[in-house]
């Protein structure tokens, strides 16, 4: 009996054989114990190779990579070496920033309470701006709401004995990423009060992310004190309400903000 060739075996075991070649190998292996053994041995070989361990990198590895990388980036912008400027991307990002600052500043300084509202949808361009503003405000408002709820849940945890905060660490990690994006955007847009609030949030979120997943009662009380000392929950509630009010006025132009 002619046995299977090495190329056939390898393609078969790696899953790269086509249907016909696969059927051919199956038919042969059903009759040939030697080739069945070769297939099993090759599978075991590849499994052993896949089991070669890779050194573990912890959850904060990305931060460590960034710490080493950032000084090497200098003061230049991304894509600096000969890359054409991607004006479309730049404009899209600029539009997001403008939407944030526009929604807040326009709402805060230019609208008189008794003045009849101008229809938002007077033109297609105005529609698009309004849509974008609403989306950005919805996203930012939701970020503030989620952060507030998460902190409230954390500070209200039962602190008798040890406290498991692994679930809170998971959401804190997500919120941290979002927080950095919004912070830079609102700062660039000139919304300094919100930027300052997001500035205050970052060390607290980092604190939660980098704490042990199980805290002693004392450690938990210390963490809770750091959250409460900054009045973060209160600030989040007030700012979140402001953002939601701005969003409502864009959806229902006749509605007054508080």
């Amino acid at each position, binding site marked *: 009996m002619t046995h299977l060739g090495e190329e056939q075996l390898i393609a078969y075991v790696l899953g790269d054989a086509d249907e016909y070649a696969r059927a051919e190998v199956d038919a042969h292996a059903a009759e040939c114990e030697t080739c069945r053994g070769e297939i099993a041995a090759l599978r075991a070989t*590849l499994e052993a190779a896949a089991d070669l361990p890779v050194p573990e990198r912890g959850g904060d*590895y990305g931060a460590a*990579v*960034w710490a080493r990388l950032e000084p090497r*980036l200098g003061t230049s912008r991304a894509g600096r070496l000969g*890359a054409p400027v991607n004006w479309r991307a*730049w404009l899209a990002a600029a539009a997001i920033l403008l939407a944030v600052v526009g929604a807040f500043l326009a709402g805060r300084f230019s609208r008189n309470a008794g003045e009849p509202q101008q229809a938002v949808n007077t033109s297609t361009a105005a529609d698009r701006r309004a849509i974008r503003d609403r989306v950005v405000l919805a996203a930012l408002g*939701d970020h503030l709401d989620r952060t507030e709820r998460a902190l409230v849940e954390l500070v209200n945890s039962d602190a008798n004995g040890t406290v498991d905060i692994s679930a809170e660490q998971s959401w804190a990690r997500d919120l941290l990423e979002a927080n950095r994006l919004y912070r830079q955007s609102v700062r660039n847009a000139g919304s300094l009060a919100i930027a300052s609030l997001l500035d205050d949030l970052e060390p607290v979120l980092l604190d939660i992310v980098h704490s042990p997943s199980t805290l002693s009662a004392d450690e938990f009380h210390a963490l809770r004190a750091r959250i409460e000392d900054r009045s973060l929950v209160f600030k989040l509630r007030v700012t979140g309400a402001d953002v939601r009010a701005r969003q409502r006025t864009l959806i229902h132009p006749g509605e007054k903000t508080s």
Partner: protein
Amino acid sequence: MDPWTIPPAEILPNGPAILPSNLLTVDGDRFVLAQAKAGNREAFRTLVERHSRAVFRVAYRITGSEADAEDVVQETFLRAYTELGRFEARAGFGTWVHRIAANCAIDVIRRRPKHIVAGEDSEAEPLLARLASPAPGPEREAAGRQMRARIEGVMQELTPLERAAFTLRHLEQQSIEEISGVLGQNAEATRHSIFRAVAKMRRALGPLVRTEP
């Protein structure tokens, strides 16, 4: 949908909300990428933090050295930052940085002096120590150690292309087409690289795993 287009507001506020979590996970790289391309360094930082571990894993598997893998991670993101303006989001950002990482790792292997193999450098001891099986029994532990040392030895004997092709196909589960793109060669050449790598593995390790029929 155009990667830079914000979803229409008609789904607000009663439909599924446009949440930061959506923006950062479901289609998250696109949103963050748009910001990074526009010069938002925090956005690039987010991409780095999100993809570092996966890039390290590929780099380590190709280079077989922790120190080299760390260098590859740095070089990969530096190149990504430099070339971000050229990146078009047809492929995901993750696929793109994996491609850069594989090429950086191949460069590292090519620069190595021929006589250096992983089993002889300063990392040999910790690497072999890590290979020790946690399973009970000194014999099993020794067998596991022997097998892993042998695998590492074979990996070092592969050419850079063979090693990268094998790693990407078998360990990272990439398609032949994707690997061809990474290695800059046609599909047939990629298949051949993988075949040669597996054939060398088979010859070196077969005797350790083959059982008598």
